[in-house]
């Protein structure tokens, strides 16, 4: 398998070379072999010794290509590929136009005020709506210049994180 640490844009081959005990194995990462011993595995989490260092890790969100991991308490995204699969196949998805037009809420909360109106011309940074969350009022601001095409928030309603607040074209 190949694993890509997204934030580092670093891809490494890794595989299990052989098992040396019920919970111990030799693995190869890149060119180097390591001793890996599983100390504990529970639902979505694991503790292991890699060579002579302890690590604990959680599997936050796993789908067929992306893994959201937390290694020693630090979040990290790793993609994996069977070695022959083209790495390019997934990158097109992220640059879709639809996502770039949509203004998502980065926060869950209650909508206290909707400032923008459908059809309004806005500049990047203009306030679209105001949310209240954890005692704080937070402005959701336009992420680009353009016209407010859709507006998916109502005063008094509660929205979740990544809720599509508006479409700006």
């Amino acid at each position, binding site marked *: 398998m190949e694993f890509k640490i997204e934030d580092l844009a670093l891809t490494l081959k890794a595989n299990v070379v052989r098992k040396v005990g019920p919970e111990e194995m030799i693995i190869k990462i890149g060119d180097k072999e390591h001793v890996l011993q599983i100390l504990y595995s529970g639902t979505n989490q694991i503790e292991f010794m890699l060579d002579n260092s302890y690590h604990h890790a959680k599997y936050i969100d*796993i789908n067929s290509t992306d893994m959201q991991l937390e290694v020693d308490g630090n979040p990290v995204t790793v993609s994996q590929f*069977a070695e022959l699969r083209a790495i390019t196949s997934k990158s097109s998805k992220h640059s879709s136009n639809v996502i770039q037009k949509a203004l998502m809420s980065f926060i869950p909360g209650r909508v206290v005020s909707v400032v923008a109106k459908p059809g309004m011309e806005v500049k990047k940074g203009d306030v679209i709506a105001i949310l209240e969350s954890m005692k704080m009022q937070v402005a959701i601001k336009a992420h680009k210049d353009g016209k407010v095409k859709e507006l998916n928030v109502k005063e008094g309603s509660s929205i979740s994180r990544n809720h599509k607040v508006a479409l700006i074209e």
Partner: protein
Amino acid sequence: MINKILIANRGEIAIRVVRACRELGIKSVAIYSDEDTQAMNVRLADEAYHIGPSNPSESYLRIDKIIDIGEKCGADAIHPGYGFLSENSDFALACKKSGIIFIGPSSETLELVGDKMRCKAMMKKAGVPVVPGSDGTLEEVEKALDLANEIGYPVLVKSAYGGGGRGIRLANEEKQLRQEFEMAAMESKSAFGRSALYIEKSLSKIRHIEFQLIRDAEGNSLHLFERECSIQRRHQKLIEMSPSPAVDPETRDRIGMIATKIADISDYLNAGTAEFLRDDDRNFYFIEINSRLQVEHPVTELVTGVDLVKLQIQIASGKTIPFKQSDLKLNGCAIECRINAEDPLSDFVPSFGTVPSCVIPYGPGIRVDTYLFPGCRVSGYYDSLIAKLLAWGRDFDEAKGRVKNALNEFYVEGIQTTIPLYKTIIDDPAFIIGDLSTDYLDRFKIFDKVHIMAKEYMKKNVDAIVATALLHNVLVKRGIDMQQKTNKRSRWKEKGTFAQGLNYGI
């Protein structure tokens, strides 16, 4: 004589007060909203009463309900903690009318210091240096614009009913002032029913330095030295410490004496804080009195050895302060990091939910005030402060080393916290030499550094990260193998095994 105290608060401060009560042999009474049924303070207090729905306006802010419970349970006194009703003069008055001691200043003093303009004017008159600004509140944006032109931009728009940095807005020029003034007015109306804003000159590279005050019923007025609280974000303190790297012994005495004078002028009772701004020319300007116990009070406790909450209770029960100014010594250095349930890597998005497990740090010089325990709930209804991590050391370096250790040991599962931010700051050269100011985070591009540090961590731990990813496949395969085996044996238990998703092959 106080035999029973109702604690009109929640979270870590409610626990803090329970512990003080126990030391004094006083019964403690907790109140809890729907959201806090399983909270730690409910467990630790001698009694606990349900106060209402989760929304604070229907529970922790309901003066009537709290007084009711206080009367029902036979409380002699009420400790308001910080936030909620702690600086509410109506609440103090309601307590008094019910014959319950309010642990804090009189309602008159609360009213005076709650009206920041009036308080500032009074102090200005008594010769206390204050920041240039409007002499009263301004209802109309036009007047704000006029004044801003007079004292010069940048200016701050502040709400007379705000507090703790809430609702303070910066305007660099006219258009922005207009926009911010209107937004602040809206926010203030929504929160307090009225909008009373004032304008103040914004100083550059300012430090926020505050002095802990204590004053008893006999009028003995003492200060317990300063706390440096300059590391802030949106006027919310993040890191506090004592001593301040910017305060020498002479300044400490001089400003400390001004602080005790401020307490005298406002006829202050019990613990409070005089907040000052210090500009780059070493001028101190009084800005306001925080008429409550501060979040960061343990910083002072660690360097003076004084238990401020016990002292609050003793003063409220009519005792005089059992020491003199000259008995107090500033011993070593203490640093506090406010651990908030917010994601510092995503613009401090609040983060809440259940914390399935957590590791709270220990060790020499470490103190953690927290309501966290494995399985606890971090609620989205209340303040995001989940823990205060404090370290004491013989000097700044030792305290810093201990905070760093403890931050590395601290682990909170399930939610995002500000821990990564503090890990970055604690190693930042500007922090180490004490070059602090309220715009510290921006001035030293700390958020960029947090990202860089996260990447550096990844670089150092490439092998562990890849091994983790690889192990997922090993375990999924194992889980499926086991499932197949177990299915043949007819029963299959999910618990403790690993059987999620697909087998990617290894």
